[in-house]
């Protein structure tokens, strides 16, 4: 198993390199520089000399191949460069944002699993009944709402109208509830649908018929034979979902002023703090690859057919 994990880690390297190259290329042609962004709000009369010196200080005037060479040389030593805006190492800047994003996405994913999977189970077991119809209507609606709008509505309802929860902020667990809730709706709906489909499929599987022929009650059939089998697929699905959740976290973080990688990314794009942008995307990609690795390891633990190969 250790060997397996190590090999998977090794396989990540080319993907990461490719991603690094890709985002470098993208952001080497991005219009506007950090210097022009600092003057973009039109508040201060722009000092051309300072802008020019900024470009020089950060090497923004260098030709592309020189910048790329520097970038690769830095990457080789796990150095992501210096944030143009705060002049701190990008790794430090990212480090401060990692935990909040992890917190938010994990909470949303766990919530989605905790709500979506049972919902899908119940819908499948009561397939054709009103519980099934209702939960599937709910699920498909959940997949059809613009995320920021959903977040805003939750904010209005739970913070302003009901006054149960704070509308923004970061710190104690109550701050996490609303953003996690908003973020969990999409994966929850998907998981509910997946779970339902998987469970329905398994309910018609031969081994479930065998289990029934053994004289098992439906409860036991579900507990002894259905759950684990459904879990393998649901888990894989959840792992894939994780990627899109991290992506959507960008929207939620911006809306709820959540201090994660997503809001940092958006802010850094608009201020053209390119090293931080590159770092953020790399970080998110690593995040996703690791979550997939975790899912694969877990699936292999549950499913004896999957070997660590």
């Amino acid at each position, binding site marked *: 198993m250790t060997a397996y994990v190590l090999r998977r880690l090794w396989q990540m390297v080319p993907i990461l390199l490719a991603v690094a190259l890709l985002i470098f290329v993208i952001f080497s042609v991005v219009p506007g520089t950090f210097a022009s962004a600092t003057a973009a709000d039109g508040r201060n009369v722009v000092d051309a000399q300072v802008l020019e010196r900024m470009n020089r200080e950060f090497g923004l005037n260098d030709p592309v191949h020189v910048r790329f060479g520097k970038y690769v040389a830095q990457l080789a030593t796990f150095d992501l460069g210096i944030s143009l805006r705060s002049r701190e190492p990008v790794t430090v800047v990212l480090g401060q944002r990692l935990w909040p994003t992890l917190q938010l996405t994990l909470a949303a994913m766990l919530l989605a699993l905790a709500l979506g999977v049972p919902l899908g189970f119940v819908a499948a077991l009561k397939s054709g009944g009103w519980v099934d119809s209702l939960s599937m209507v709910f699920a498909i609606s959940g997949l059809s709402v613009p995320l920021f709008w959903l977040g805003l509505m939750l904010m209005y309802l739970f913070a302003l109208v009901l006054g149960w929860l704070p509308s923004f902020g970061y710190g104690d667990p109550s701050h996490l509830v609303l953003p996690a809730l908003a973020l969990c709706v999409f994966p929850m709906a998907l998981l509910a649908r997946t779970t339902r489909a998987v469970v329905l499929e398994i309910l018609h*599987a*031969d*081994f479930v*018929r*065998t*289990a*029934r*022929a*053994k*004289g*098992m*009650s439906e409860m*036991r059939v579900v507990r*002894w*034979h259905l759950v*684990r*089998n459904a879990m*393998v697929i649901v888990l894989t699905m959840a792992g894939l979902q994780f990627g899109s959740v991290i992506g959507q976290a960008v929207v939620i973080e911006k809306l709820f002023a959540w201090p994660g990688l997503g809001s940092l990314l958006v802010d850094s794009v608009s201020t053209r703090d390119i090293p931080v942008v590159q770092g953020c995307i790399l970080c998110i990609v690593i995040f996703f690859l690791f979550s997939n690795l975790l899912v694969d390891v877990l699936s292999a633990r*549950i*499913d*004896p*057919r999957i070997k660590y190969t």
Partner: protein
Amino acid sequence: MKPGGIALLEVEDLCLSVTAGGKSCDAVADLSFAIERGQIFGLVGESGCGKSITALALMGLLRRPLAWRSGKIRFKGQEIQALGPEAMRHLRGKHISMVFQEPMTALNPLATVGRQIAEMFVLHEGMGWHEAEKAAVRALAKVRVAAPDQRVKDYPHQLSGGMRQRVVIAIALACKPELLLADEPTTALDVTVQAEILELIHDLCAAQGTAVLLISHDLGVIAQSCERVAVMYAGRIVEEAGAQEVFQRPRHHYTRGLISSLPLLGARAINAANGRTKLQEIRGMVPAVTDFPAGCSFHPRCGMATQACIDRAPGLTRLEGGASVRCHHHA
């Protein structure tokens, strides 16, 4: 049916329906037969004749779109066709158990075979898991699996098809049931393994006194092991008789067709009866449940069909020696 003693299983005018596209059709109709204790009863017919549905009905495992419509199933004299799910559940596995066609998928891929056998003891004998797992080793030994104490730790995908079917049989016979429904138990297996498995079923049931309803599309399999045979076509039994009799004197044209399509046994039997030498196939295909033809349902495929066959469905004709046939022109 037999005067005097009560048969182990009696099926009387059983009618099972299937619902498709808002329309309900009879997949099985007017089904009657009886199985004695310890008897091996064969049910034969092409796929789609309603054999498996019948077996599921006996197990009480009909699920939508299949449903019981009318008729009676008596197990040890007790009517079970309308038994509640809980009561039926106690019957299943313990008194009536079943071996399915597909050993590759009949077992849960995520549980060890030992555990899957042990479940039977936990469910029906009230054993704890630990004890049950020991019993599972013994049950696996009984179905002639080598090194059963090792095999119980295996997962289904680690076993061959024949081994898996042995495991399925071990599960089915774990609690010494009175009736075993074997639905095409050897179809998916290599020819070499088929005989072993049939022999295994035969021997174990004989030893335990378990009656067997052996379902197969393969008359050869039936001929090998059954005492009595019923031939099904399009949801109805078209002929029922002792095994010897069916093969030596097939009365229904469908039965004849089936026999004549058999390479080994068929060639011999037909040679004896009709003097034909060529292997023959029955032309056409089994009709779908939704459009069973009117009249004799076999008439579109029957070489001897007359206007009467098209107009009228034949009733069951009882013949001497307990045999019966459903044909206007039976031999």
